Every structure is written in structure tokens, then in C-alpha cells.
């Protein structure tokens, strides 16, 4: 029983990290109908930049001396997320915007290439970039409930995700910019006609998405305690699978999909002999099945093509 419970917690945590990436995918897809394949690599870049800030600049000890630790962590993560937000904007300008109005396959290919370029740059230029790096323990890891192996870190990850999603929900539904983004996602021409500044909405979406990805990367790295320069592609694929399974373009879908994929992975890994190998396979088979038989995802709505 306690084994199942601890696996459930595992799955929820993993699901949180996948959900954040999935939300990133959905935001970009919603506003521009484009699958930004570099999302996973951007998230990992976030983790690396936070790690760099924490270990390579003298920042962390200085801040720790004058501020409570959790504020330090908050600041470091914010700086890291800001860097990924800007990175996402750069990616938009360089490899997505030039293909506006053209076949959606071009930004698909270009963002795949951009993701690879990004991870390679990390591998080349970060000190010891090609080797796995131990991620600094920024989040306290005391075990609170020994029976089910639930630690402070687990709680923080889950709470952080909930908080982030709540803030995002408020932003998208209660602010003017958020509503503009929704309008643009639903019908670009109509939105422009009622005076929505399309370019600004798109730019904001990429900034916000980049922020979320950065935080997601931080949480992933904290969860695994390790980062590798090439983690981004697998993580991105899983996050993308989560987005599709949940419903590409839907924030709730990202959460539902993220949890589903995480649960499948964790339970295949834990309860099928030799399962760790097949966990990823199971996750990807799930997305294949969904694309074939329910491409709009669990939450999504079907669209009918007019002849």
C-alpha cells in the first residue's frame, strides 16, 4: 500500500514537470498553430542557467547571507526563468516568425534544429558540458512523512506547479493581455478585427511560455538531482506527448496529459518486471494511439474540415 502511495507521489511530481512543458507547447500551438520542438531544450537551458547562477557566480552565498533561503531560491529561479523567456523570444524571432504564413512543417523542422543547436551549445560551452551535472540542492529535501517517502521537495514541486498554473489561469482569463491571447488562439483574423494587437499577444505568449519552461526545467532538475545537456529532447518529447494526449492548445489538457503520461511511465516502471526500459516506450505508444484515434486529446474539441 505504501509502495503504491509513494509511486503515486512520484507520478504526481513527474506529472507536474511534464505538465509545465505541455502547457508551454499548448500556449505556443494555440497562439501560432506551430509545434515548438525546442521547448524541452529551452527548459533544460533554464536549469543550466539557474545552476550557473547558483554555482558559478558568487550570487548564491551573497544572497543567502542577507535573505532567507527560500527568497534566494525564488530570485535565482526568477532570473533563470527570465533568461528562458528571452531565449524563447529569440527563438521566435529567428526560426518561427520568418515562416509565418507558410507550411507548418517549416517551423517544425526549424525548431527541431534550434533545439538541437541549443543543447549542443550547452554541451560545447558549459564547463564539462557533455557530462551529466549534479544539480545543486536548492530545494530542501527533508523527508516529512517517512512512511510514504514524501519530502519537502515533493511538496514544493507540487505546490509550485499549482501556484504557477493558478497564476497562469488568472493571467489568461482575467487580464486584458491574457484575453487577447485567447482571442488570437481562437481566431486570428477576428481578433485583429476587434483591435487586438496580434504581434504583442504573440510576443507575450512566447515570453510567458518561456518563463514557464524555465521553471519547469528547474523542477525537473530538482526532481532528478541531475542535468544533462541532452535531456531536453527526451523531456520535450514527453512534454509534447503530454500536450497532445491532454489536448494540444488547452492548459487543462496539458495538466491532464502530463499526469497521464507520468502515471503510465511510473507504473510501467514500477510494476512490470524489467519495466524501466519500457516506461518511455509505453509513454510514446500512448501518444501514437491518441494521435491516431483521438487527435484532439482528452479535453480537446474536434474540428471539421469544410469542403
Amino acid at each position, binding site marked *: 500500500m505504501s509502495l503504491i502511495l509513494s509511486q503515486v507521489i512520484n507520478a504526481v511530481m513527474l506529472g507536474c514537470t511534464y505538465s509545465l512543458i505541455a502547457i508551454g507547447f499548448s500556449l505556443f500551438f494555440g497562439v501560432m498553430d506551430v509545434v515548438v520542438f525546442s521547448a524541452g531544450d529551452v527548459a533544460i537551458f533554464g536549469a543550466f542557467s539557474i545552476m550557473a547562477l547558483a554555482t558559478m557566480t558568487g550570487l548564491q552565498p551573497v544572497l543567502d547571507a542577507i535573505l532567507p533561503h527560500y527568497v534566494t531560491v525564488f530570485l535565482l529561479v526568477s532570473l533563470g526563468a527570465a533568461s528562458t523567456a528571452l531565449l524563447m523570444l529569440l527563438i521566435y524571432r529567428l526560426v518561427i516568425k520568418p515562416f509565418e504564413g507558410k507550411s507548418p512543417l517549416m517551423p517544425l523542422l526549424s525548431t527541431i534544429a534550434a533545439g538541437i543547436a541549443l543543447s549542443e551549445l550547452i554541451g560545447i560551452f558549459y564547463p564539462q558540458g557533455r557530462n551529466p551535472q549534479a544539480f545543486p540542492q536548492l530545494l530542501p529535501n527533508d523527508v516529512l512523512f517517512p512512511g510514504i517517502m514524501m519530502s519537502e521537495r515533493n511538496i514544493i514541486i507540487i505546490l509550485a506547479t499549482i501556484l504557477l498554473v493558478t497564476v497562469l489561469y488568472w493571467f489568461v482569463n482575467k487580464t486584458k493581455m491574457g484575453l487577447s491571447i485567447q482571442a488570437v488562439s481562437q481566431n486570428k483574423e477576428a481578433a485583429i478585427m476587434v483591435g487586438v494587437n496580434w504581434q504583442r499577444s504573440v510576443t507575450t505568449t512566447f515570453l510567458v511560455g518561456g518563463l514557464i519552461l524555465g521553471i519547469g526545467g528547474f523542477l525537473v532538475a530538482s526532481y532528478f538531482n541531475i542535468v544533462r545537456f541532452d535531456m531536453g529532447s527526451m523531456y520535450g518529447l514527453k512534454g509534447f506527448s503530454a500536450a497532445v494526449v491532454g489536448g494540444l492548445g488547452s492548459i487543462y489538457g496539458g495538466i491532464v496529459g502530463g499526469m497521464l503520461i507520468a502515471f503510465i511511465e511510473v507504473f510501467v516502471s514500477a510494476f512490470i518486471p524489467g519495466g524501466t526500459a519500457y516506461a518511455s516506450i509505453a509513454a*510514446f505508444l500512448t501518444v501514437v494511439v491518441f494521435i491516431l484515434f483521438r487527435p484532439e486529446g482528452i479535453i480537446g474539441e474536434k474540428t471539421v474540415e469544410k469542403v
Partner: protein
Amino acid sequence: MPKTALFSNTLVIAILVSFTGCMLLYIALVGPLIAALAVLVLVLGLMVTAERTGKVEPVYHAVEDHKGISLAVIILFVLALPFVLSNNYLLHVAVMGGIYSIVTLGLNFQVGSTGMVNFATAAFFGTGAYTSALLATKFGLSPWFTTVAGVVAAASLGLVFGYPALKTRGYYLSLVTIALQVIFTLMIINTSWLGGPNGIPGIPAYSLGGTSFRLPLAIFGMELPYQANYLYLVFILLGLALMAASRLHNSRTGLAWNAIEQDEIVAVTQGINLTKLKLLAFALGAAFAGLAGGLYGHYTSFIGVEDFDFSKSLVFICMVLLGGMDNAIGVVLGALLLTIVDEKLRDFADYRMLMYSVILIIILLSRPQGLLPKRIRRYQAAKSAGEAKVQL
């Protein structure tokens, strides 16, 4: 109109084009990385100039009118290559270029002709390689037979992977192929009788009349390195593949594929069976890749899972994109050039994937139609309606 003068003019052009093409490839092959990149830029420059001055189609016609001579030039080059190259390694690069060209010809059916961007080509390549290698090493069957078995296995996988193409379109299809490719790689890593992460060593070479292909080729009193055997084999098969691809392109099948790419509703209301043609594109493309895979295994004698992963699929896509979608000669050119550039990049091993991704982005931004863009089909029409003749 002095017909004889015109005749000899186009003949000269045909010879010039084939010769220059081969020379440029040769220079790229033997020179340093800079030379290869320069050739790339030069070819691009020549094409752009030809397009601006409206000379592209006339040159194509000249070459097609004198197919025999153009082919003879190319054949001579290929035959002479082992004699002229001082370096076995360069010969190896040429063999690899030929192998990858066969793959891209197959991928071209899916991407170029039918518009289905398939990221699982490495899985087809791998299926051919693994099937052939396993049958040869574990059951001692003849490599010729196992290669054919590899083709069949790959084609079957092509049908399986093609099934999603019937239910999805555009980038959803691409995403499914990415997932399937990743599943393929994971399955190989995790299955020990498939070699697992260690791969399959000791794959036997082809042999003809008792002589193994891995022995140096004794000819005209000279001894050529064993790569020459494979070079000739691969390029003969490449020639056949190119012929098949070009015949398909000019047939109603090729036209149907193009129609599917342009507008599926049009295609279907003209009587085209989408299922049949999409599966055909997948199966045939996979068959080509499977053939190349079999050749690869028996050539290098060792295959490992890292040769058949998503990044390899991406490389194949780059080759088709660089060469020119739906242009058979184009994709072969793209494969040869990119193989050469890739090998030159081995000296900068750390920067290899970075360079690939940057090249891909540059191509997409500046010349997505590739070096030799798609052409309008030419059925050689005479002056009046009713005397049209198809070019053989």
C-alpha cells in the same frame, strides 16, 4: 534552323554538365572541409544564376536528350574512382554517400512526392540492417539473401508505420513518425537478442563466385582496396534505384502522389485511392532504406543502435531538403554532398550536430526548395495537339 548545330550544342552541354557535376563532387570529396562547403555554395550559385537567366529547363533538356552520354560520363567517373583515389578512407566516404543516396531516394517518395514528412527513415534503414545482419550472423544465410529479406522486413515496417498516414495529416503525421522512430530505437536498446546497446558485430561480407568482397579487388593487374567492390555494387544498385524512382515519378503513380500532396480532396475525387498510394509511398520508401541498411551492415561488418536513431532520420531529411524535394537527381546530390560534408566534419566532432542544425535552419530560411527544385513534368510534346510523345 541548322539542326546539326543545335544537336551538337546540346550534346556539349550535356557532357559539360555531367562532367562538371562529377568533378565538383570529386573536389568536395578529396579536398578539406572548406572545399566541400565551397562546392556547395558554387552549386547553389550556379543554380540561382541559371534560374535568373531562364537556363534551367534547357540544360535539363540537353541532359535528358543525351541521357546515354551523360550516363557514360558518370559511369566512367565511378569506375575510375578507386584507381584515382589514393586514400581508402575517401573511397569509404564515396561508398557511404552511395548508400545514403539510396535511402534518400526512398524518403523522397514520402516527403518530396507525397508531402508526408517522415522522421522514421532511420528505423527503416535499421530494420534492413538488423534483419540482414541477424539472419546472416545467427543463421549463416547468404548475405545476398539476407539483404533481400531486409528489404522485405523494412517494407513491412513501412506499411505499419504508414498506417498512421491514413488517419493523420501534415505535422501530426510527422509527430507520429517521430514517436515511432524513438520507440524503435528504445526497443533495440532494450532487446538483447537484437544486440542491445552493444550492436551486432561480425556481419559477413558479400561474396561472388567464392571471392569475398572484403578482399582487395584484383583487376587489370592492379590491386584495389576492398571498398572498390562495395563502391561498384552500391552504385549499380543506386543507378537502378534512380531509374526506378524516375520512372515512378513520371508515371500515373508519381502524379497521383503529387496530387495527394497538393490537395487530397482533388486526388480522391479523381479516383485516387489514398490508402493504397500512401501505403505504397511508405512501403517503397522503406524498401529502399532497407536495401541501403542491408548494404550498410555487410559493408561495415558492425552495426550499432546509434546509427539508426532520430538524429539519423533528421540527417536524411536534411539531405532531401538540401538536394531538392521531389527531384530524384537532387536528393542524390544532396545525399552525396552532405555525406562528404559530414565526414569532413569528423575532425570537428564536437561541432557536428551543431553544424547540421545550423545548415538545416539556413536552408529553410534561404532556399527551402533545395539545390535542384521540383520540376514540372515534361512529356515531350510536338507542335500540334495529338502528336504528344512521352520522353523515355
